[in-house]
């Protein structure tokens, strides 16, 4: 019976992109249990909705997170449009889908770089981020911002993409897709990566479903949940299947994300081929009165914006439930019984976006 010590992990750690604190109870290099603690970036954004008009709040909803920002504004706008019964034109749906998939690509490439860095494989980290730069250039040229887009508004989108630019994006995507496929070979076949991720952080399929895991954390354990299948924006007209792996460890979650980058590039190509002509926005008059749960699929999982309005310009309540908040109980379950040297890899495998989790 060894002695137990408590080792604090975080909030400052070289491998963490954002601050989270874990108290690890350790006995002879094995972790017995982990106690999480959050609140380092709590900004109280849900309270601001009572003093900003609902049309201006879109800018604040975007800035809840820096990586998945477009999809937050999409969820908010979609919720308001459903409460007020506003019909958004088809071209706006397709443009929103194209920008959402670009967001997903750049977020997954960022994660793959950080994951390689957590294992010590710096060259692969730089390769992933070099490919990511090309995706960010495409976003800046069409919307104006690399990470915070500012192009979604209640009633449609603000900026349009010309036909010539769409053709250029399509040929760029062919090249990016080829580079990502070549880089994925390293993630799947390299013996260092396999040694550090196979069998680490195991979560069974029942546990993943019961504890409420979502996104690649759940899809890597065999639970096929992807909110894009409920059919918001232009997804009913695009043809895709969720990427699911069955092993339940860090290696399979990494494979899910690597394959989703290639799938997103393919979805954008489909959308560019099918995009119709037309307006990009409609005029919105009046105030929202009612409530709705707006559900979208972020790169990290399922995100819900609960909106409640009472007929004035200011909303009564906006509750944001982000995927990282619901992936923390599975993380606590995964950490019990692992080696201490595997803790950074396991914490990164749920893709922690603490800025989203605490708003």
């Amino acid at each position, binding site marked *: 019976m060894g002695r137990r010590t408590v080792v604090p992990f975080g909030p400052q750690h070289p491998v963490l992109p954002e601050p989270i604190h874990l108290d690890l109870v350790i006995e002879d290099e094995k972790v017995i249990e982990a106690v999480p603690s959050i609140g380092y970036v709590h900004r109280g954004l849900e*309270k601001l909705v009572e003093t900003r008009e609902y049309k201006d709040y879109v800018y604040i909803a975007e800035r809840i997170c820096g990586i998945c920002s477009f999809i937050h504004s999409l969820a908010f706008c979609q919720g308001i449009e*459903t409460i007020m019964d506003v019909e958004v034109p088809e071209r706006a749906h397709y443009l929103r889908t194209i920008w959402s998939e670009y967001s997903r690509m750049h977020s997954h490439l960022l994660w793959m770089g950080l994951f390689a860095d957590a294992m010590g494989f710096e060259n692969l980290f730089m390769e992933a981020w070099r490919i990511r730069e090309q995706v960010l250039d495409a976003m800046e040229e069409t919307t104006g911002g690399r990470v915070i887009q500012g192009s979604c508004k209640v009633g449609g989108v603000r900026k349009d993409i010309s036909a010539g630019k769409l053709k250029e994006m399509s040929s760029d995507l062919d090249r990016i897709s080829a580079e990502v496929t070549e880089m994925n070979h390293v993630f799947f076949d390299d013996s260092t990566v396999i040694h550090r991720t196979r069998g680490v952080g195991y979560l069974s399929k029942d546990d993943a479903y019961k504890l409420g895991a979502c996104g690649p954390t759940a899809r890597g354990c065999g639970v096929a949940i992807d909110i894009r299948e409920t059919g918001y924006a232009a997804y009913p007209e695009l043809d895709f299947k969720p990427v699911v792996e069955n092993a339940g460890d860090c290696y399979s979650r990494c494979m899910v994300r690597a394959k989703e980058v290639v799938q997103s590039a393919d979805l954008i190509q489909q959308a560019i081929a099918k995009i119709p002509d037309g307006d990009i926005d409609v005029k919105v008059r009046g105030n929202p009165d009612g409530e709705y*749960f707006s559900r979208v699929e972020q790169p990290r999982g399922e995100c819900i914006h609960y909106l409640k309005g009472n007929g004035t310009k200011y909303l009564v309540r906006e509750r944001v439930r982000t995927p990282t908040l619901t992936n923390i109980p599975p993380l606590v379950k995964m950490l019990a019984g692992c080696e201490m040297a595997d803790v950074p890899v396991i914490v990164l495998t749920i893709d922690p976006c603490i800025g989203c989790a605490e708003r």
Partner: protein
Amino acid sequence: MAIEDQLLRDISVEELLGEVKKKSDDGYRLVQMGCTRIDEIFEINYSFEKEYKFENLRITISGDTVVPSISDSYWGSFIYENEMHDLYDIKVEGMNIDFNGYLFKTSIPHPFNDNIKVKKVPAKKKDNGGEE
């Protein structure tokens, strides 16, 4: 023009544990628990989902009611119950992992509960020397 149908049912606090156990036996997963404050009453939403069917249960309580915890049916609910307690000061009994107010460390305890109006803070003025 809703994208999907979302059911919402109002229930009382006493029926809560029974209804949640029925949902857990049916194979639903817990999606979220959210709290809304309207004047002096609190509305707590419990959301469940199975195969993309989305259903909600709602209880309406005053500030002193003690809400039973649903951790027997759903182990992962501790994060939402602690967040509700830290931000809104709602008393929940029987949580499987109880942080006693230390999950969310804020400088004002229970910030969403008090009547803290977010003031329009003026920009820094050189002669005043500071913001309120």
